[in-house]
């Protein structure tokens, strides 16, 4: 025990030294110094892991706020490469040098850690979890016991961004009806502007585009419930129709869409060669940074005639949460931190500094566009269906839709065939109604 504390101290010192060595322009205070000042007891260092390598500096500033309020606790924030994070976390939580608190994935991809007993259930430790929206908490629940294993960190919404300058030039406005939407597409196509910036080479992007364009058509949350109740499956005519809509819209996407990478689609949009981009709220910061002159607007796609819903919806999902390592040596301090991570104070920092949607009640957004996206979602929420409910086995729903969508665009299958691919793939581990 003693040796461990010493070791932790040494590690802290080394980390502090490294950070100091590379700090000249960052201006953030060195962790370690803050803990010493004003602390009556023994200072404790918490290791906090994340996959947000791009947010390291911001997080360090955010945790400075926490450290000032809790002088005896230092937060060592460490980000690992997103693509390898799950493996690093898995070994970290089962080895000896893991984190005390870590960002964990949501929904299906959270389950391996829950089942392995690597995380602590949090409902008793963090009372504020009771105030969170139930649909958001679902992202942090264990599949089997229904307990909550994470403090939700961020939510994402999926909608259509548009270039207001291009819209104005062509005398266009946000669509109110499906016919409006199609008229916009036709007009833009005639004006030699790519209407929809879509890249289908990256399979994961296809289900996002599908839900952005057609969630209302297949019925959003109603369809989700019907699937959960076992009343239907993915070969449902409404779902097939929504895939057909995706195919019908292909002519408004770049040519050879299966060869267009997701990043190509981003460039098309930010370089103002395309007018609309169907994508997640996480794009906003990138769009604004890549082209500060870009005038952006967002809208929900109105449902086409014969849709399951009569109003447009915004699909959304919980994107990661903060979990507590079952082997932490500082459970009390970690609990203090987790409770802070559930406060509106932290939520507001997430909104203002990280430009993300915080699911913590009471958070407001200074960016009007961000506020608009959040309001649209609050008014008419829908689940990002394949991510929310269909990643609890192998293969995952989003991968299946990626492959099915690519085949659809290539003309290898029709809408019915694409729906069948999703249904057949999922039936390896999922039965409607279970």
């Amino acid at each position: 025990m003693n040796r461990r504390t010493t070791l932790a101290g040494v590690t802290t010192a080394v980390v502090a030294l490294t950070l100091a060595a590379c700090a000249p322009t960052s201006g953030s205070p060195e962790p370690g110094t803050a803990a010493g000042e004003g602390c009556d007891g023994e200072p404790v260092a918490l290791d906090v892991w994340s996959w947000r390598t791009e947010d390291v500096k911001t997080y360090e500033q955010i945790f400075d706020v926490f450290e000032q309020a809790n002088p005896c606790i230092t937060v060592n924030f460490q980000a690992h490469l997103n693509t390898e994070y799950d493996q690093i976390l898995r070994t970290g939580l089962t080895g000896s040098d893991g984190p005390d608190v870590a960002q964990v994935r949501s929904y299906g991809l959270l389950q391996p850690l829950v089942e392995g007993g690597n995380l602590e259930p949090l409902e008793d430790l963090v009372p504020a979890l009771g105030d969170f929206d139930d649909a958001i908490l679902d992202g942090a629940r264990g599949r089997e016991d229904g307990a909550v294993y994470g403090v939700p960190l961020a939510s994402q919404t999926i909608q259509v961004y548009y270039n207001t300058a291009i819209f104005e030039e062509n005398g266009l406005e946000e669509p109110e009806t499906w016919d409006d939407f199609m008229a916009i597409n036709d007009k833009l196509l005639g004006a030699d502007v790519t209407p929809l910036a879509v890249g289908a080479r990256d399979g994961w992007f296809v289900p996002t585009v599908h839900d952005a364009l057609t969630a209302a058509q297949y019925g959003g949350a109603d369809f989700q419930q019907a699937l959960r109740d076992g009343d239907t499956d993915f070969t449902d005519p409404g779902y097939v129709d929504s895939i057909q809509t995706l195919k019908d819209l292909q002519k408004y996407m770049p040519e050879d869409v299966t060869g267009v990478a997701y990043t190509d689609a981003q460039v098309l949009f930010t370089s103002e060669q395309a007018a609309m981009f169907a994508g997640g709220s996480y794009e906003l910061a990138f769009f604004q940074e890549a082209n500060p002159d870009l005038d952006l607007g967002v809208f929900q796609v109105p449902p086409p005639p014969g849709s399951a819903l009569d109003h447009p919806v915004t699909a959304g999902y919980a994107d990661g949460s903060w979990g507590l390592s079952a082997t932490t040596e500082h459970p009390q301090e970690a609990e203090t931190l987790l409770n802070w991570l559930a406060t509106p104070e932290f939520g507001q920092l997430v909104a203002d500094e990280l430009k993300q949607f915080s699911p913590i009640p009471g958070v407001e957004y200074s960016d009007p566009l961000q506020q608009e996206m959040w309001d649209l979602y609050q008014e008419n929420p829908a689940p990002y269906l394949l991510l929310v409910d269909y990643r609890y086995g192998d293969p995952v729903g989003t991968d299946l839709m990626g492959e099915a969508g690519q085949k659809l665009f290539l003309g290898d299958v029709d809408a019915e065939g694409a729906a069948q691919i999703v249904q057949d793939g999922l039936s390896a581990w999922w039965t409607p109604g279970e």
Partner: protein
Amino acid sequence: MKRAAVHVVLWGYAAVALLPLLIMVWNSFRSDQELVAEPLGLPVSPSFDAYQEAWVEASFSTYFLNSVLVTTASVVLSTAVSLLAAYALARSRSRLMGVIEQVFVSGLMMPVFLMIVPIFYLLDRVGLASTRTGLILVYAAVSIPFSVFVLSTFLRQLPVELEDAARIDGAGPLRTFWSVLLPLVRPAVATVVVFRFVPIWNDFFYPLILVRDRAQYTLPVGLTTFFGEYQTSWSTLFAGLVIATLPLVLLFLVATRQIVAGLTAGMGR
């Protein structure tokens, strides 16, 4: 006419081969905005900002030294032990040696992904997780199969008469190995060094999983982690990659000279 055609092909392909390096260098002089707007354009107003940022902000100097240390030590270690082993395998008639060789070579065939988790727990248990020593030992060990395989093939090709002569002169096996075989096998050693140095230098998978302490990061893992996703500074990433690739180019120039020198020495005998 035929000569000219050969030269056109040789130079033409050389241009294609150089393409990535050129793009890397070009892009390191361009701003992020330019990169996003036009991923493959030429630098309009070249700037060295990205280099400064890479060096200062990415604590490049630390990672650079770690990379030099880890890569050099592991390649030296693995090449030394592999040479000894390859000599033994190539010059022994024992049946046991055949079996041992197969076991060595099987190490080449093990998917790295599968081994990484047990390796982590192994290092964790002996207190070598997150250390450069641990990384050096692992890299050296995983390099052995390739090095042994290539070196023993070369040693088998060498005529044994020289060794016989040395033995008749009264030299022991180690001495024979050192003074007779080593000079002959130099091109193969240079080849092995290049083909182990480069992947280890570029590798970020092992340190990513095995090292959690920033002070021990190597260059690629430092770069990939620092710059993380595409959304951040691409030009800095390119600058970092240029600096990271330069030592390889230098090593390579030296190594090919070695290969050529070794060849000439070999033919002179």
